[in-house]
């Protein structure tokens, strides 16, 4: 079975003289949540931009469901759901219209849209905002709009960039339960974060990134074995790994 996402030996960045990320390799299978962990500036967002096809790798290859961006640029971006760190939206569309247009442009049936949209609105407690414009929203509400748009399409792969910042506690819980549900239904999720307690609780595997390179990756048990810290939390292991330099 091919992995949902394969990143193989990717080196890249914004200018050719300086690589921000070097020799990055990992993969995401069905039914798993993988955390991408790193300090500010470690290269998390750069990796995500490469996966989205917004940056071109200088070396290596990225495949989603076996396809590269350069191989099929029109359809590549429709094969995953992306929740950006800073929300992007149309000023001219209301919350409801965003959801409807997302469903429409991804080719969802109108009936399917109607079925999926109500529970989303309800669980993220955005029913009252349905006819308002995102410009009047708080950061957290805009974040919820992004999340709802991605969740409604139900892709097999989710790329989630710092989802927790700006969300209220109930929103965080709803998001994580939804992602777990998606995982149980067979989706793979890559989530970048630096909230380690949450990552430890919800993620199956961890990719620890430091200064553009992967320091270690694996399940919590594997990380414990590598570092020789059998009873420690992800927090301790992470600090041990990055402070060693």
């Amino acid at each position, binding site marked *: 079975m091919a992995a949902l996402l394969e990143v193989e030996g990717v080196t890249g960045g914004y200018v050719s003289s300086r690589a921000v990320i070097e020799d990055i390799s990992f993969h995401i299978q069905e039914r798993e949540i993988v955390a991408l962990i790193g300090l500010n500036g470690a290269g998390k967002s750069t990796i995500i931009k490469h996966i*989205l096809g*917004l940056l071109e790798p200088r070396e290596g290859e990225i495949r989603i469901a076996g396809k590269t961006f350069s191989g099929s640029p*029109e359809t590549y*971006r*429709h094969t995953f759901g*992306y929740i950006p760190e800073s929300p*992007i*939206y*149309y*000023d*001219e*569309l*209301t919350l409801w*219209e965003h959801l*409807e*247009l*997302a469903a*429409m*442009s*991804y*080719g969802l049936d*109108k009936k399917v*849209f109607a079925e999926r949209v109500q529970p989303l609105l309800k669980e993220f407690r955005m029913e009252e905002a349905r006819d308002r*414009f995102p*410009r009047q929203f708080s950061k957290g509400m805009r974040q919820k709009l992004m999340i709802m*748009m991605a969740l409604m399409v139900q892709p097999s792969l989710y790329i989630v960039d710092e989802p927790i910042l700006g969300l209220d506690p109930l929103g965080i819980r709803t998001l994580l339960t939804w992602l777990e549900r998606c995982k149980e239904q067979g989706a793979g999720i890559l989530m970048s974060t630096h909230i380690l307690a949450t990552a430890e609780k919800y993620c199956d595997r961890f990719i620890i990134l430091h200064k553009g390179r992967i320091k270690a990756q694996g399940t919590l048990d594997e990380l414990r074995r590598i570092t020789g810290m059998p009873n420690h939390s992800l927090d301790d292991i992470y600090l041990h790994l990055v402070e060693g330099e």
Partner: protein
Amino acid sequence: MMNVDLLFRERLRRFSKEVVLYGQYMANGGVLMVAVFLTGLLAYYYPSLVQAIPVWFPVPVALSFVIALFVTKSPHRTFLLEADLLFLTPAEAKMDRYFRKTQIYNFVVQSIGLFLVLLLLMPLYKATMGPAGAQLWLYWGVPFILKGWNVYSSWITMRLPDKNQYALYTLVRFGITFYLLAWMLSEGQLLPYGVFIWMGLLIWFHIRLQRISKGHAYQWYRLLEVENGLRLRFYQIANQFRDVPSLQQRVKSRKWLIWTARLIPYRKANAGRILFLKSFLRSGDLAGMYIRIVVISSLLMLILPGVLVKAAFALLILFLSAIQLKGIGSQVRHQSRSSLLPIDEQQQKSAALWGRRVLLVVQATVHILVVLFAVS
């Protein structure tokens, strides 16, 4: 120490530079010719328009009403910037001096507009009332005094945190202004003893003003909102002649129009069209411009003589609209938004083409209906 005088001079300089810059483009544009043409048309029809006024029509009251509208409307430009909320609010006490200068600026600029309105209404006033001597001096003097008073008092009511209350005070201001003008223009004929009530109202109003200026601080967010709105309007006008880079599009919800977009059936292929149409209908400037063109040209077509002239005019407007609308498809979309939905460039382009056609067909249909109505 902050020098607010210097700050005001700097801000005013920056704004006048923009006015000069865009003023040049406006003067060069063909729209100036249209304005001259319309003025000529108006001058031609004015006398017959004045003649057509029936005897029973209360000219002084109507005149006062129109003048009072312009006198009462006192938008406050303050030249504030977003960052001022952070940097100037600590110097709030010193800002009084700054705001006094902006008030003088507003008075001067608005007086110019008022002067033009008075000039425009002068022939009407002269022809119907036949004023002379002191009465004429009053006509040219009192509105400006009232303008000054309106600028002063509306500035104080801007301190009210409640917008509804502000609207109420604006209404009272209008009442005070309107009554004095009507009383003056009718040479004391209109409710002669009302003047005493008017004085009482004025005194009461000033007591309230005192209380407001003591009880409330500047509403910085509101001031900024008003400033941004006025600045935007200036840019929107300038944008008709030249692309203004700093123009931030304001989105309007336009509930009365948006139902048309719901007529497009739910289908994957229609996503681009729906996006285009909704963006267009809610855009502040584009849709506004289009609707104005359709309405104004329809009205002009009613006035124009003969079916052939009407048809030629309609064709001309259709041509102009087609040129104007050509720009909207190529409007620069925010780069990052293009990755939000899987609507590719090709789909967006064909949607814009479709949208332009629909708008032109709608315009042509309206014009045909107008001609049919005028002929029958």
